[in-house]
C-alpha cells in the first residue's frame, strides 16, 4: 500500500498558533495530517512532493474551533429568513434584512409563490419585532401573504411565533382559547402572536416542523457549510438529548462519514433531569461514555456533557447576584430561573465527573456560575481528577473572584463575547447596569486570573463567525457604537488563541487540532487578509476563502 503523496501548501503567511514557531510560509501535508511547518526549503527534507500554491496570496491559520453552537444553526435554513439584519446562508447567499413589516410580507409573498403544494405550511424564521418601527406584525399582515395557506413565523428569540388567520383556523385558535400566551386584541380576538412553547405548540404544523428541522440530514450539512464559510473546521453541537433517540447517531455518522462533509463536529450529550443519581444509573452518562469510547470517528467526536443551570440575561431569567436587575419587566419575580435545583448540582456534576466526562454548564448569571463552581469543587473533593477541563459556558457575569477559583480548580471558560455587540447597550441600560455590563464577558479578567478560555457565537442565537466573535472580544463595541468596558478588551493574538488552540483545549482536542504543527490534523482557516495587519476594528471584515479540512480544500459558498 503506497502512502499518500506529500503535498506542500505555500501561503503568503501562516499563523501557526504554535508559540515555538509562530509564523511560517509553507506547510507539508500527507493524507489528513501535517508533516511539518516552515519554509518550502525546510520541508523539502521530507522527500518527493507536489507544491500547491493556490494559497500563495492567502493567510493560513489553524481552522477555527467553535466550542458553543447548535446544529439548529443549520436547521433554520430549511426556512426563509425574515430577520432585521442581513444574514448569509450556508450557500453563501445574502438574505437582506427585512427592515419593516412590508418587507417581511414581501419576502413571504415571494416564498409563498415558490411552494407548489397549496396545503404545505409556509414557515419562516428570524423575526425580531424590537427592531421594527411602528405597529407590531400580527396575523392581518400575514393574511396579505395568504388566506388559504397556514403561515408560521418563528421569532429570533425562539420564545415567540406569529401566525396567520388560516393557521389559527386550522389549529382551532379563537377568542375562547384559554392557553396563556395566545395574545388577544382589545376585542378579545387572537392577533396571531403566540408566546412561549405551550402557545406555539397549538400551531402544531408550524412549531413541530421547526423542531423537526434540526433532525434532518440537510440541517447537519448546512451546519457544516456555515462553519466552513467562516473558517471554522471544528464545530460543537453543544447539548442534545436527541442522541438518545433512535437513528440520530446514525444520521450524524452518515453525514460526517461523507468525505465531502466540510467540518468536524463535537456533539455534546445534553443532561436530562434524572435527579442526580450516581453514574451507574445515569443513562446520559452511560450514553456519553459509550459514544466517546466506541463511536468516535475522524469527524465526529464526543465526551462532553452539557448542563443548563439558568436562563438568559436579556430575558431576565439568568440567576444574577444582588442587586439583580436594573429594570425588569412588570411582574418579574426579581431574579431569574433555576433549570436545575442548585442543591442537586454537586450530585449531578459528580455523576458525570466520576464517569470521566467533561461537564460544560450553561451559566449566564454569576449566581449560577457560583453554584456550578461549588459543585465542581465538591466533585473534586470526593473524587480528585486531574485535567477534567470542566467549563463554565457563556460565563457572562463571572466575577474576578470566581475566575480565581476556576483557575484553582482547573476549570475553563467559554465566554459569550458576541453579547457585547448584540445586547451590550441593553445590558448597560436595563439588565445589569453600567458597572457590571462593563465587566461582563470578561476575557481580560479570565486571562489575568489564568483561566484558559474560548469565545463563542451560540449560533443560531447570534451568527457563527469567529472573526466577528474575536472582534467583539478585542473591541467590545456595541450595536450603538460605544466601547463597553475598555479594560476587558484583549489583544488580537489572545483572541486568536481563544478561537483556535484554547477552544481545542476546552474540547480536549488540542493534541489534534488548534495549532499548525507536525503531527496534527491539517485543518486550516484560509483568510484573504492578515489579522495582524488590518486594524483591530477591521478584524470582523476579513474575507474568508474557506477552509482546508484534513488536507482537503473546501472553498466557502460551495456545495
Amino acid at each position: 500500500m503506497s502512502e499518500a503523496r506529500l503535498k506542500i501548501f505555500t501561503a503568503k503567511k501562516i499563523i501557526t498558533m504554535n508559540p515555538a514557531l509562530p509564523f511560517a510560509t509553507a506547510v507539508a501535508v500527507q493524507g489528513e495530517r501535517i508533516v511539518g511547518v516552515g519554509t518550502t526549503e525546510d520541508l523539502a527534507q521530507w522527500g518527493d512532493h507536489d507544491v500547491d500554491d493556490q494559497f500563495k496570496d492567502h493567510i493560513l491559520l489553524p481552522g477555527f474551533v467553535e466550542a458553543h453552537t447548535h446544529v439548529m444553526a443549520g436547521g433554520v435554513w430549511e426556512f426563509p429568513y425574515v430577520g432585521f439584519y442581513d444574514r448569509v446562508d450556508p450557500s453563501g447567499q445574502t438574505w437582506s434584512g427585512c427592515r419593516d413589516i412590508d418587507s417581511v410580507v414581501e419576502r413571504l409573498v415571494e416564498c409563498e409563490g415558490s411552494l407548489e403544494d397549496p396545503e404545505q405550511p409556509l414557515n419562516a424564521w428570524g423575526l425580531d419585532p424590537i427592531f421594527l418601527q411602528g405597529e407590531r406584525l400580527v396575523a392581518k399582515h400575514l393574511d396579505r401573504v395568504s388566506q388559504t395557506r397556514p403561515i408560521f413565523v418563528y421569532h429570533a428569540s425562539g420564545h415567540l411565533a406569529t401566525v396567520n388567520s388560516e393557521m389559527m383556523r386550522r389549529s382551532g385558535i379563537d377568542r375562547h382559547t384559554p392557553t396563556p400566551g395566545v395574545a388577544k386584541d382589545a376585542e378579545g380576538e387572537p392577533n396571531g402572536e403566540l408566546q412561549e412553547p405551550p402557545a406555539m405548540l397549538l400551531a402544531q404544523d408550524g412549531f413541530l416542523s421547526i423542531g423537526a428541522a434540526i433532525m434532518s440530514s440537510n440541517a447537519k450539512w448546512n451546519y457544516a457549510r456555515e462553519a466552513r464559510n467562516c473558517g471554522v473546521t471544528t464545530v460543537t453541537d453543544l447539548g442534545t438529548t436527541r442522541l438518545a433517540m433512535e437513528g440520530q447517531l446514525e444520521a450524524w455518522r452518515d453525514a460526517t462519514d461523507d468525505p465531502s462533509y466540510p467540518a468536524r463536529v463535537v456533539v455534546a450529550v445534553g443532561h436530562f433531569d434524572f435527579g442526580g443519581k450516581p453514574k451507574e444509573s445515569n443513562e446520559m452518562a452511560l450514553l456519553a461514555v459509550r459514544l466517546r469510547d466506541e463511536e468516535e470517528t475522524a469527524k465526529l467526536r464526543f465526551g462532553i456533557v452539557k448542563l443548563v443551570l439558568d436562563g438568559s440575561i436579556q430575558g431576565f431569567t439568568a440567576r444574577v447576584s444582588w442587586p439583580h436587575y436594573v429594570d425588569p419587566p412588570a411582574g418579574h419575580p426579581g431574579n431569574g430561573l433555576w433549570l436545575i435545583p442548585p442543591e442537586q448540582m454537586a450530585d449531578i456534576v459528580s455523576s458525570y465527573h466520576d464517569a470521566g466526562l467533561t461537564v460544560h454548564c450553561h451559566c449566564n448569571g454569576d449566581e449560577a456560575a457560583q453554584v456550578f463552581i461549588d459543585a465542581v469543587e465538591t466533585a473534586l473533593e470526593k473524587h480528585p481528577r486531574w485535567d477534567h477541563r470542566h467549563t463554565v459556558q457563556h460565563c457572562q457575569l463571572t466575577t474576578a473572584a470566581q475566575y480565581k477559583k476556576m483557575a484553582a480548580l482547573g476549570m475553563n471558560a467559554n465566554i459569550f463575547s458576541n453579547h457585547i455587540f448584540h445586547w451590550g447597550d441593553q445590558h448597560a441600560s436595563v439588565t445589569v447596569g453600567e458597572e457590571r455590563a462593563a465587566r461582563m464577558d470578561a476575557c481580560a479578567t479570565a486571562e489575568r486570573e489564568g483561566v484558559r478560555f474560548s469565545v463563542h457565537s451560540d449560533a443560531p442565537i447570534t451568527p457563527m463567525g469567529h472573526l466577528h466573535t474575536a472582534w467583539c472580544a478585542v473591541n467590545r463595541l456595541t450595536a450603538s457604537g460605544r466601547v463597553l468596558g475598555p479594560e476587558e478588551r484583549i489583544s488580537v493574538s489572545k483572541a486568536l488563541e481563544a478561537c483556535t488552540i484554547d477552544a481545542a483545549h476546552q474540547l480536549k482536542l488540542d493534541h489534534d487540532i488548534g495549532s499548525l504543527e507536525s503531527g496534527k490534523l491539517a485543518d486550516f482557516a484560509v483568510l484573504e487578509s492578515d489579522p495582524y495587519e488590518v486594524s483591530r476594528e477591521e478584524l470582523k471584515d476579513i474575507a474568508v476563502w474557506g477552509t482546508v479540512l484534513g488536507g482537503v480544500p473546501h472553498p466557502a459558498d460551495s456545495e
Partner: protein
Amino acid sequence: MFPTEAAMEVSVIGGYLGVGKTTLVNHILRNASERIAVLVNDFGDINIDKELIDASDDSTISLTNGCICCSLVDGFATALETVASFRPPPSRLVIEASGVADPGAVAAYGHAPGLALDAVIVVADAARLREQVADPLVGQTVVSQLTAADVIVLNKVDLVDDLATSHQQISELNPDALLIQASHSEVSLDLLFGREVRKAQLSNSHIGEFESRTHESDQPLSRKALETLINELPKNIQRVKGIVRLTESPQVPMVFQLVGRKWELRALADRSNSPEGNQLVAIGPKGSVPTDWDRTLRSKN
C-alpha cells in the same frame, strides 16, 4: 363519572425537591379509579409495585389498572403525542413538574387541543417550608411555585408539632388556594381532582371522608346567581366544578371551577360533547355539604 369538558382533564403537580411529588404520583397511580396518564421526568423514581406493571419500554410504562406513565425526556410535544395515541384514551393527564419548574408555566400546556386544565397542585413540606422560603438561592422559586397553586398539599404534617407557622406562611403567599393537609402525600383523589365522590371508595383514616352533591338544571343561570352562590357558599365546600350556561349567552357552554377561594368562569373550548343545561358538583368533608348548597341557583332569578 361526572361530565367533563374535554377528553382529558389535566392536573399539574409542582413543588420543590423532596416535598413528596413523586410519592403523590405513586399514590395517584395506586388508587386510580379512572384511566390516568402520568408524565414524569424520570420513572426510575416512580416506584410502581411490580404486580401493577403490565408492560414497559424506554419511555412508557403501562399499568394493569389501565394507567400509563410516560417520560418527558423527549419534551412535552412528544409525550402528549404518545398519550394521545393510547386507546381507550385516558380521562386524566397528570403532569409532574420538575422541582425547580414553575408549575404555572407547565400548566399552560394543559390547554392543548383535547385537554382542559383542572388545577395546579403544589406540594409543600411542612417541616422545611420555612427554611426553603428563606433560602437565598431557591426561596423565590419556592414562593413562585406556591403562588401558582390552586391546591396546596401541605405534606409531612406528621413530622411537625406546630403547623401554625406553615399555615401562616401559606396564607401570606396564597390565601385563596385550597389547602389540604397530608402525610406521605395521601390525599383524597376526589377532592384533588374535583370529581363526584363514589360511595364504593373505602375511607382512609389519614385522608378523611368526603362527600359530593350535584346540581343539575335546564334553564340558563344569571351571572348574579353564580356570584351569590360563590359568596354564600358554606366554607367547608372546597371544590365546585362543572358546566353552566349563562342567560347572557345561553348558546356558549361555560366551564365553572371553584378551588379553595379561587374561581373561574370561561368558555368551553371543545364544545362537541358538552351537556345541555347546567351540571355542577360540590365537594367537601363528609357531612359538610348541605343538601341545599345550590339554593341560590334554584331560586327564581
